[in-house]
C-alpha cells in the first residue's frame, strides 16, 4: 500500500538535494547521492513495507549523472513515479532518458552562462570602485537567487509532471534563456575589460608593455579556448618564479 508524499518528505528531499554530489564517484557518479536524497520520500511512500524501501533504494543507487541543480527535476519526477506505483523498469528507463539533457542543459545554463556572468558582474563592480564586500555580497545574493530558484522549480516541476517532465522542460526553454543571457554576459565582460584598462585598481598605472601582453593573453584565450588555460597558468607561475629569483640574485 503506497502513501501519498507529505510536505515534510518533499522538504526533506529538497534539503538533501543540496548534498547530492557528496559521494560523487567514477563508478555510479551521482547514484549514491540520488538514493540518499530519495530516502525520505521513499520511506514515506513505502512506510509500512521496509523491504520495498530497500528494493527501491537499490534501484536508485544505479549510475546516474546530471547537472547537480537540475538533478532535482529527476528527483521530483522519480518520487512522483514511485508514489504512482510505476513499474521499476519504467522508472529506470525514465532516469536513463533524462540524465543527458539535464546534464547538458545545466552545464550550458549554469556553468557556462549564469556562474561566469554573475562573477563578471561582481568583478566589474569591484574594478569600477565598489567596496569589495559589496561585490562579494552581490555575487552571492544574485547567484543564489538563480541557484536555489532553479533547484526549487526543478523539484516542483518533476513532482508535478512525473514522466512528462520532458515536455515541461521544453516549454520552460532553459536553453533559450541561456542563449538570451549570453550577449548580456559578453557586454559585462567588455565592461570588465574596460574597467580593468582604465581603473585605478587596474592597468592604468602599469607600463604599456603589460597592456600589450594582456592583449596577447586575451587573444590566446579567444582563439585557443580551454586548452590554453593550463599552459597559461603554468607560464604565469613560471614567470613569477623567474622574476622572484631574479630579484634575489640582483
Amino acid at each position, binding site marked *: 500500500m503506497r502513501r501519498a508524499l507529505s510536505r515534510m518528505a518533499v522538504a526533506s528531499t529538497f534539503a538533501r538535494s543540496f548534498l547530492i554530489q*557528496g*559521494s*560523487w*564517484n567514477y563508478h*555510479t*557518479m551521482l547514484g*549514491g547521492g540520488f538514493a540518499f536524497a530519495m530516502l525520505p520520500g*521513499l520511506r514515506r511512500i513505502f512506510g509500512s513495507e521496509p523491504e520495498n524501501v530497500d528494493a527501491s*533504494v*537499490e534501484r536508485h543507487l544505479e549510475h546516474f549523472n546530471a547537472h547537480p541543480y537540475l538533478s532535482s527535476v529527476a528527483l521530483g519526477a522519480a518520487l512522483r513515479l514511485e508514489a504512482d506505483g510505476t513499474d521499476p523498469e519504467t522508472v529506470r528507463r525514465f532516469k536513463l532518458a533524462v540524465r543527458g539533457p539535464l546534464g547538458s542543459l545545466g552545464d550550458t545554463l549554469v556553468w557556462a552562462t549564469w556562474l561566469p556572468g554573475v*562573477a*563578471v558582474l561582481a*568583478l566589474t563592480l569591484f574594478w*569600477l570602485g565598489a567596496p569589495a564586500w559589496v*561585490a*562579494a555580497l552581490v*555575487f*552571492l545574493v544574485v*547567484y*543564489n537567487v538563480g*541557484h536555489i530558484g532553479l533547484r526549487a522549480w526543478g523539484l516542483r516541476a518533476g513532482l508535478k509532471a512525473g514522466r512528462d517532465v520532458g515536455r515541461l522542460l521544453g516549454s520552460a526553454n532553459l536553453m533559450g534563456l541561456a542563449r538570451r543571457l*549570453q*550577449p548580456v*554576459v*559578453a*557586454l*559585462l*565582460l*567588455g*565592461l570588465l*575589460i*574596460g*574597467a*580593468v584598462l582604465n581603473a585605478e*585598481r*587596474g*592597468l592604468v*598605472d*602599469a607600463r604599456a*608593455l*603589460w597592456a600589450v*601582453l*594582456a592583449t*596577447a*593573453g*586575451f*587573444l590566446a*584565450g*579567444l582563439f*585557443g*579556448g580551454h586548452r*590554453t*588555460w593550463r599552459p597559461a597558468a603554468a607560464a*604565469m*607561475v613560471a614567470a*613569477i618564479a623567474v*622574476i*622572484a629569483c631574479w*630579484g*634575489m640574485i640582483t
Partner: protein
Amino acid sequence: MEIVRLSALGGLLGLDATGVGQFMVSRPLVAGTLTGWMLGDPSLGITIGVVLELYLLVSFPTGGARFPEGATATVVAVGCAMPYGGAGVVPLAVAVGLIWGQIGGATITMQRHLNSRLVPEPGGTRSRPRAVATAHIAAITIDFLRAVAVTFTGVVAGRAVLGILVEDWPLSIPESTGLLLVGGAVSVGILLRDLGGFRRRGVWFATGLALGVVGARFL
C-alpha cells in the same frame, strides 16, 4: 591557532565547491573576502580573491572533469600572504594559489576514486538505506578532512616560500598588477569564446568595453 582556523575554513569552503550546497561561497572572490576578514586584513584577502577569481572564471566543477580547487587555493594564498608585506606579496601568493589549486584538484580526483569503493554497489549486500546514508555522510566527512589537510599543508609550505622570496621582489605594485592581469586576460578570452566568440558577440563586447573605459574614468 591561526593555521587551525585557516584549515577549518579551507575544509568548510572545500565542501561547498561540490559536496555540500554549491552556494559558491567557495569561489575565490568570496573565499578571499572571508579569509582576509578572518585574519584581520580584508583588503589583502579581497585583492588575492579577485585575481584568482579572474583566473578561475572558466573553471567549473563539471561532472567528471578534473578542475583546480579554487576554495582551498584561495584560503592558502591569502593565509600565506598575511604575515608579509611589499609589492611581491600578491603575485607570489597568487602563484602559490595556482599551484595549490592543481594539488587540491588532484586530491579531489583521488577522493572520487575512494568514493567508488565507499558507496554501496547496486545489488550488493550493503545497499540498505542505512548503509547508503552512512556511506554518503562518510564521503562528505572525508572530503572535509581532505580540504583541511590540503589547506594546512599549503599554508605551511606557502609561508615558507614567501618568507624566502618576498623581500627581494623587484617589480613595483602597478607592474605586479600588470603581470597578474596578463594571466587573467587568458581566462577572459576563453570566456568570450565560450559565449560565442568575437564574431557572434563582438558588438556586445565592444559596447561593454566602451562603457567600461568611460565608466572607469568617471566613477
